[in-house]
């Protein structure tokens, strides 16, 4: 066992009847990092996470959590992590305080400890005012906060978050990100699944891209972006008759250029200094530019590039 790893996943495979949901996936997660599992719907992210959190038995392969094999020492492994599921897994019919009390008790805290921890978490997650309302009256954001609070009862060193912001409005989403960052600052290791690239980009130190059950790519958000694309220059001319002329100018400076519609030219853009030259040449030929933008590569490019639908 390697001391540096919080989680080790080796050759993990899950078959449901004939369908292979997770196909020979291996990766390691370091202590203290935020690890993102990124992929489209149905890619196998949640299935992978469920196997990592002892909720689902793997068809083959192993997962260890701080050295504890989830299949052989499931109890020891469960004691090491907190899990926040895809759907808020709290009790709808009872209050936030009661939820926290019950889950504290189930986690083995004494009544006094449970009471103290409940108050701490309610304060920390700004739920104190609504502590005694039933959850069915809660907003989506409050539910998620409570859900996260419940997973943090034992201050686990490792936290699994399954699509933590799916279905939240942008504001609540940003709040959730703040909360997650705070956890990171406190030294927790976080494993999160998401289908949002910006979320993975914002939060994760390393990202594993999963598609059709296979691990497609793993690396930092920056290295993934680098691998796929460079910046692009997008230029539109006012008069479509001049577009060929403009394209020639762009090609001289940037080596290649493509016409994507009647007026717009797209070209790989790796040297920012060439922009002035292009604009000066266009001015000289009296070509007027209606729109100009430089597009930085986004994780979306990575994502679409890596998870292109298979043609078969």
């Amino acid at each position, binding site marked *: 066992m390697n001391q540096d790893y919080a989680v080790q996943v080796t050759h993990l495979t899950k078959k449901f009847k004939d369908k292979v949901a997770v196909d020979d996936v291996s990766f390691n997660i370091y202590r203290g990092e935020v690890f993102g599992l990124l992929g489209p719907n149905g890619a196998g992210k949640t299935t992978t996470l469920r196997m990592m959190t002892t909720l689902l038995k793997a068809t083959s392969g192993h997962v260890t959590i701080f050295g504890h094999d989830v299949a052989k020492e499931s109890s020891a492994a*469960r004691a090491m992590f907190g899990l926040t599921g*895809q759907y808020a897994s709290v009790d709808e019919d009872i209050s936030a305080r009661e939820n926290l009390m019950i889950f504290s008790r189930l986690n*083995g805290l004494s009544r006094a*400890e449970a009471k103290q921890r409940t108050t*701490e978490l309610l304060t920390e997650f700004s739920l104190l005012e609504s502590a005694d309302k039933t959850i069915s009256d809660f907003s989506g954001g409050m539910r998620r906060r409570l859900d996260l609070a419940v997973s943090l009862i034992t201050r686990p060193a490792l936290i699994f978050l399954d699509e933590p912001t799916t279905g939240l409005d942008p504001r609540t989403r940003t709040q959730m990100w703040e909360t997650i960052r705070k956890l990171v600052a406190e030294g927790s290791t976080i494993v999160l699944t998401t289908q949002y690239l910006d979320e993975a980009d914002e939060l994760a130190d390393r990202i594993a891209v999963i598609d059709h059950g296979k691990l497609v790519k793993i690396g930092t958000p920056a290295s993934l972006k680098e691998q796929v694309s460079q910046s692009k220059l997008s230029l539109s001319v006012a008069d479509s008759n001049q577009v060929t002329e403009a394209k020639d100018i762009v090609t001289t400076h940037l080596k290649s250029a493509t016409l994507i519609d009647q007026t717009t030219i797209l070209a790989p853009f790796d040297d920012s200094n060439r922009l002035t030259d292009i604009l000066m040449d266009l001015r000289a030929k009296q070509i007027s530019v209606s729109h100009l933008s430089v597009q930085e590569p986004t994780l979306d490019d990575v994502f679409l590039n890596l998870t292109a639908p298979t043609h078969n």
Partner: protein
Amino acid sequence: MEIKQTRSNLIMNTATMAYRNLLKTVHNPDRFMDVIIQPVMFMMLFGYLFGGAIAGGVKAYLPTIVPGILIQTMLSAATGSGAQIREDLDSGVFDRFKSLPMAHIAPLAGQLFADSLRLLIATITSLTTGYLMGWRPDVGFQWIIVIALLAIFMGWAISWVFALFGLLAKSATMVQSISMMGMMMLSFLSNAFIPIHTLPKFMQVLANLNPITFVITAIRQILANGAWTSESLIVLAFGIGIVVVFAPLTVWAYNHNN
């Protein structure tokens, strides 16, 4: 604050889970409505409607129908456990229970222990309604307690069967509708409301084989003789048998439910 995790303690966890289910009921008292309304409704409906036709009068019919309605109510209360478990599974809260370092039987056992409160309320309502309609058993009150406990235990044992069904079924609606049909068949195709000898031959065979018939007969015997009979012992053993078989099966299904 350093949190030390104590070893998972089955009894404590089950108690916490039972507390959870009771809290849910306290927040939603309408969960009790079925076990209160149903026995009152059936007792009055059947008593006043069929009493004259079957036994020549309401009063004469009550010794037949009170144990019958009592057990029918137990059955229907037991089906509620299955639906509740299915609902919990669908809501995702069981994922959290499963991911906690605690005994896997605790969420199920907690649910079923909390459900015995439903059974108790159903029993009290059934017997009270019977009493108000003029049911006066000849035996002492202690025997009323005995049959109440026997009925509750049998209801509790049967709730394990429905819990298993709840785990295996696809949706809460399906659990409810199939349980409803099962409950109707079991309670009507027995001696709960009618003397079996009035039935056509093939139905007599079925009704005599129906375990519900045995339970109701045992209860009627206790109420008639004021004594613990060998029939009641068989019924009790049968109830224990159900728990011994279905509790492990249910836990197994729970562990393998993905």
